[in-house]
């Protein structure tokens, strides 16, 4: 068994003091050691982007980073977005309202990539989304609705900021609502 290294890492606001093998990938640490299955592995070669998480607010492919590199870092995964009461984050709401997902496997990576973008560029244009998420592969949607979702998320978040509101709880009635 290779020597273990110490990793003090904050994930979704919780501090962890862990020992792991030097070769453990961040994605595996999140999924296996911290039981956060929302980060998905699509290729483990850094091409598809499904495993994208935020490391110190920067979108990062968790299949290409060793956990040992992240001592002292702060990581956010898709599990950080929605409220424990079932309230979806505005980015998640936008994805469901614009039908920006089908099988959902690439979606956590898209959401976290979008999260980084929207923190930098609050109301992105199509080109901004393509720049930020152009390296994330989706095999289902054809991307059109993902671009729409991210732009809509920007509008939702801007609306909330200007209204001084927190994100609305989405009731089941609203979920079944008919869109025009």
């Amino acid at each position, binding site marked *: 068994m290779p020597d273990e290294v110490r990793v003090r890492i904050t994930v979704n606001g919780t501090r962890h003091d862990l020992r792991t093998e030097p070769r453990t990938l961040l994605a595996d640490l999140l999924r296996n050691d911290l039981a956060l*299955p929302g980060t998905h592995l699509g290729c483990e070669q850094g091409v598809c982007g499904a495993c994208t998480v935020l490391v110190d607010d920067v979108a990062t492919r968790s299949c290409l980073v060793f956990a040992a590199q992240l001592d002292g870092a702060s990581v956010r995964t898709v599990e950080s977005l929605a409220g424990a009461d079932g309230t979806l984050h505005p980015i998640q709401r936008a994805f469901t309202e614009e039908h920006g997902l089908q099988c959902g496997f690439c979606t956590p990576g898209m959401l976290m990539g979008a999260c980084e973008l929207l923190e930098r560029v609050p109301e992105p244009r199509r080109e901004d989304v393509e720049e930020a998420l152009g390296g994330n592969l989706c095999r289902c949607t054809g991307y059109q609705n993902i671009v729409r979702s991210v732009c809509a998320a920007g509008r939702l978040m801007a609306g909330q900021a200007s209204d001084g509101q927190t994100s609305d709880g989405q009731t089941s009635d609203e979920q079944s609502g008919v869109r025009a």
Partner: protein
Amino acid sequence: MSTVERPAAETRRWVGQSVARKEDPKLLTGRAGFIGDVVLPGMLHGAVLRSPHAHARIVSIDTSEAEALPGVVVVLTGATAAELVDPMPAFCAEPVEQRAIAVDRVRFPGEAVAAVAATDRYIAEDACARIRVEYEVLPALVDPVAAMDPSATRVHETLDSNVVFHRTLDWGDVDADLARAHTIVRSSARWHRMGAHPIETAGAVASWDPFSQSMTMWSNSNFINFLPWAFAGILRVSTNRLRMIPCTVGGSFGSKHLITKVVSITGALSKACGRPVQYLEDRADNVAANDNVGCDRIYDAELALAEDGEMLGLVLRIIDDYGAYFQFAHGQHGNAVAQPVGPYRIGSLRYDVSCVLTNKVQQGFFRGAGADPGNFILERLVDKAALEMGIDRVELRRRNFIRPDQFPYKIPTGNIYDSGDYEAVLDRALEIAGLDRWRAEQERLRAEGRYLGIGLASCQERSGYNASEWWSFYDEPPLPATSTPESCKIDVDAMGGVRATIGCPLWGNSPETVVGQVVAEEFGIDPSAVSVVYADSTIGAISAGPGGSRVTIMLSGATRGAARTVKDKMIRVAASAMEMDPEDVECVDGVFRAKGAPGTSMTMAEVGMKAHLFHDGTDEAESSGLVAVYTYDHPYFTPPSADRSDLGAFYPMVSHACHIPIVEVDPETGEVTLRAYYVVNDCGTVMNPALVEGQVVGGIVQGIGAALMEEYSYGATDGALETPTFREYLLPSMHEVPEIVLEHLETPSPFTTYGVKGVGEGGRLVAPTAIASAVDDALRPLGVWVDELPMTPERVVGMIADAQRRP
């Protein structure tokens, strides 16, 4: 933008609306339960060692060093696995045996030679690296035409030839039509192999209990409620001791129907140690060895036309490279002949197919399933005929379309087309594309030395498959025609809560949403009130699941059947309680009341409580409870005739679309850029416009991949896979996608519940040939004719150079 034109008399409340997707919240929050998320106490992790050679004899395998590695629990070779599990099921009549781990010989690059289970995946991979395999490399069969030579090395000694299946079928008098033709256009076309490549790979978790001789298997297979007995056969478990549990599936596109390799390897590892084992393909496993590869065809085709452009007969001679095994037999051709003549009145067809074995991974099914290259070759022939005969390509199509008054229409092979209005679709597509504006733009750019092209294709999407297509060309099929059923169980509990249990898994489409819409429609309740759960294989919910654009057709039929059965019982219970005749009671907005005179009424909960706990015995035939299972069999299929002169109706719900892509081609670099894309689609009653748009757009983008970039490539001499990762095998990204403008026309199917037809494959069935047509149109001044996909930059530059060299 997606818009639906619908008759004003539409009275449905939920069917046909963009009801929000029930599946989304769990998918958006990382809680969906994919196969990789299944964790059991004491679970081991599998990894597979694969052959680096396309074709080799396994001389010896030394696993001792791997077994000695701490953490390694099991190492299996082909020989030791064969003691635990049986060969994989095959739907072919020919003696082509396939085991999940090769015994003695490997027949394609990436074929499994050993498998390991260890305490974690890292150790399992380490162990694979410590297995010593000595190979005697054999000549690799890469070119299917060379493999057809009688002197070629055989892929399987059990066969006399690498042509594992050949048949010529004539429907109608082809020779007479060729003889009387004014013009015969010919095309040699090449459609290369592409992979489904869902972002989630295939995987399974097996848990073998040696004491009860029972197996529990989680997986992302689709067929857990269709062919559970086939899995039991592989695993050597009695069918009633195998429990297959569905997981949320991260995309399939046809590639996860069986996944027998993964199921077999995982099951064998678990049987070897009596512990739960998880094996997930990594991307390298998936690209090299998952059976997710589509058609690989060489066409020699002829279309015979009368002087006025009437299409008379069609000849398709096909060599199809099936790779090393033949699990689904010639199914991709059984599929293609559901619509070989497209939307046209073509009276005769000769279909000559040679299925050839080579040293490549075997063909499986990929969105389109054989009809994808079929649409490509037909529309190429039609465009070529228009050019050669000097008839406008739109006008030529118009003259030959099956007319609305001719439905149901029987095509030469025997399949039935249910309904359609192809000219209306074409007219609307031309309208929304604004062709005059694009022609003007084309002129303007040509003056600048730029090449803009306008594509056009009018194609069919046969939907609601009947699995008999897998063996329909055999004289003596190993199996009869199948009704390919789908079922739904609905129960209403004592508090009036409605739960639907379905046999089909969540594959990336929207079964929960569809079921919710249908139940809501039938009971007049809100779709959000309906709970939907997925059945494991012990429930008896027979289900062929998603595939062949069937699931919304079949699931809506099954769900409505179950809902109406339960609702009818509730009406009887309510009538009894209200002392009324059941004939006089109706269910409106989830309330049971006297027809037309709402006064006395009962809620769902009141009826539910009564039916569950306070049965009054008024009807001796009825017992307590509110539950119904309804199995919806394929709504319209007829068996083939013995001589195969009529294959019967097997794919009769036929959707239709016209695609008009606008491309610009850079003749220097060969780069093709999509500038715009217009679609008019007719899939009968649109169940949910937002979701249908998602399917069509997603399919089109896969079609853009097929047209421009996706291709499995193999070394010409050694057969090595040259596209083992997503760095070499390119998938479309956001950068390749134009804004897609989509409209729907609706000609409901007369055969299905609510008139729905399938739509899951349509985008990919039409886009490749439409984009080929656009590239042709762009490069017409340079004399280019596209007859090979994908049109990679290298190929486009090559086509231009070839055209320039021609005198």
